[in-house]
């Protein structure tokens, strides 16, 4: 247990936190936009798997990580289109749609994966390398923790203020927030509610697909069926815990990622505590977080309510 508290390990845990944070942050900040528009996209987990899987396929067939990342985003958009069709056009219940899509994608990726590998070895690729920021990464300790991350991690961090600006300082952000509080107010002004719902969902799912791609490309060299292991759900919990604010979401994801990073290190260091405890920690923490929040939930007024004229 004392091995955990050596300096090198602590640095590694903290640096790992930001790495682990990235995919969840992408998914969470994207889904935040969707939820502020009043839509519960429960299919985050499935979209992430899709993003991970398609980026894997592209990475191993083309060898290009750039293309793989793009593939992840693109597959996220496709998932978003299907989700938006079910939710915004056909107006199926939000929860059922998301759950159904999760189940479908779970089966689909499994099937494709087996097809692709033909039951034999899974092809591998070179995973994403680090992108140290010049000068800043040379700072002792701080440099190791913050500035030797992958490029996409920096992007993830920047996306938080970007989303904040979008929601609160642009007219589209105002409209999207209006969607979540009272879509009729937009409809009555002659604005196309369904179109805006599509946009909000697509933004969210693209981010999530990107998160899935990162999860695949940055952490290992081949696909595994249970790659996401509930990270999509943690993203959703982070939004609730963060009270649907960009700042809050960031903090919640940070906490989950920290626990996840600790779990990984416990496993690596082969400490005498069952590693499963640490793996379960983020999920346990999220329940405790939600218990603590109770009545102070401040979700968008029309979240989850299908809009009919």
């Amino acid at each position: 247990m004392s091995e955990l508290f050596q300096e090198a390990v602590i640095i590694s845990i903290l640096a790992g936190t930001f790495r682990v944070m990235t995919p969840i942050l992408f998914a969470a900040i994207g889904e935040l936009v969707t939820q502020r528009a009043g839509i519960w996209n429960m299919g985050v987990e499935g979209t992430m798997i899709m993003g991970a899987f398609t980026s894997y396929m592209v990475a191993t067939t083309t060898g290009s990580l750039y293309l793989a990342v793009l593939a992840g985003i693109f597959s996220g958009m496709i998932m978003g289109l299907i989700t938006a069709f079910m939710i915004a056009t056909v107006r199926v219940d939000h929860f059922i749609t998301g759950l159904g899509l999760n189940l479908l994608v779970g089966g689909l990726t499994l099937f494709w994966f087996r097809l692709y590998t033909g039951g034999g070895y899974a092809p591998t690729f070179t995973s994403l390398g680090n992108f140290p920021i010049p000068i800043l990464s040379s700072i002792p300790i701080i440099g190791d923790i913050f500035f030797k991350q992958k490029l996409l991690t920096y992007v993830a961090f920047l996306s938080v203020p970007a989303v904040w600006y979008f929601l609160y300082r642009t007219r589209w952000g105002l409209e999207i927030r209006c969607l979540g509080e009272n879509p009729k107010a937009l409809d009555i002004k002659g604005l196309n509610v369904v179109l805006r719902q599509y946009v909000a969902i697509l933004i969210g799912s693209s981010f999530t697909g990107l998160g899935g791609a990162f999860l695949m490309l940055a952490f290992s060299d081949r696909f595994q069926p249970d790659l996401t292991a509930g990270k999509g759900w943690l993203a959703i919990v982070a939004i609730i815990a963060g009270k649907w604010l960009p700042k809050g979401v960031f903090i919640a994801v940070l906490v989950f990622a920290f626990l996840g990073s600790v779990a990984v290190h416990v496993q690596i260091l082969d400490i005498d505590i069952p590693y499963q405890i640490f793996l379960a920690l983020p999920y346990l923490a999220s329940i405790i977080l939600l218990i603590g929040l109770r009545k102070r939930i401040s979700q968008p007024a029309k979240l989850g309510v299908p809009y009919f004229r």
Partner: protein
Amino acid sequence: MIRVERRIEVNNSWVIIMYLSACIVGFLLTSLLLWLSGADISKAFYALYKGSMSNQKTILNSLSKATPLILTGLATVVAFRAQVWSIGQEGQVYSGAMSAYMASLMFYGLPVWIYLSLIITFGALGGALLGALSAVLKNRFNVNEIISTVMLNYIIIFFLSYMVGGGPWTGVGDQALIYSQSNPVDDTAKLPFLFDSKKLHFGFVLAIVSVLVCHVLINHTPFGYEIRAMGHNSVALKYRGTNTKKTLLYLMILSGAIAGLAGVSEIFGTNHSLRGDTLVGLGFTGIIVGMIGGLTPIGTLVAGVVFGGLASGSVYMKIIAKVPGTLVPTMEGIFLLTFLIAGVASHYKIVGFKRDV
């Protein structure tokens, strides 16, 4: 954009047409997938048929595979009818399996009927406990049930992984270490087989009984009235004198208990040792089964049997037609989507294609 309006009258023949179309479209999409994967379509479907219902052995096998799915499907029905989106069946199956296993260790040596009854009861209690926990989290702390059940699923799965993968219940021997499983259960703990089969066991009886109980409960008791009312308009139900928090608790206990029975059935009827890999997916597939079954107990029975047949036939598909076994979960997902759309189409209609909504 398409404009939709809720139908005022639901035409029964239209509903049947919709669901038949869903089946047909589902099969077409499956055939498409098969074609894309380069398999022989007719061979694949023939293999499916052969493996699921060609003779008594395969039929019993299908029913045996259907057993846990019927149970988790019922668990879904009980919850979803009340618009309680519990995704906890997966974890409740594990929890039921573990409680039953614990009982099998605790009560070893008791007369067989008592021993088995205790195992079954503890299994149900294990699932019920998890269900109750989600209900309490919602009632007292307003925690969304989707999230609490998903989180609890992961926690329980990790717990099992520990117990049989290095923890106190880990089996002895190399096999146990590789597959993360417990020691095999004693012969006295095995659920009796039916019809001289080596596959179909007493769990199937539990499933059938559960179907009947749920059917009667939902349609002919005040509790069932409350469950259905909760699903349509829980506000009105609460307004006029019903303690909906109690209703939620009881229905989650029931749902969890039934799912727990699926865990008992798998461990003590089919596999005879506690292991996670055979329990995986039973809960999630149950959700699909319940939904395709129209969220009714009888429909769930039918859907469960069909899915059991698919599972049974998939082995043959792999051997005869060289189709990956993972086609089956994909088929399940496809049929789920088509049935969902059929369900919506039954209750809503397209009013027009407009440029602006």
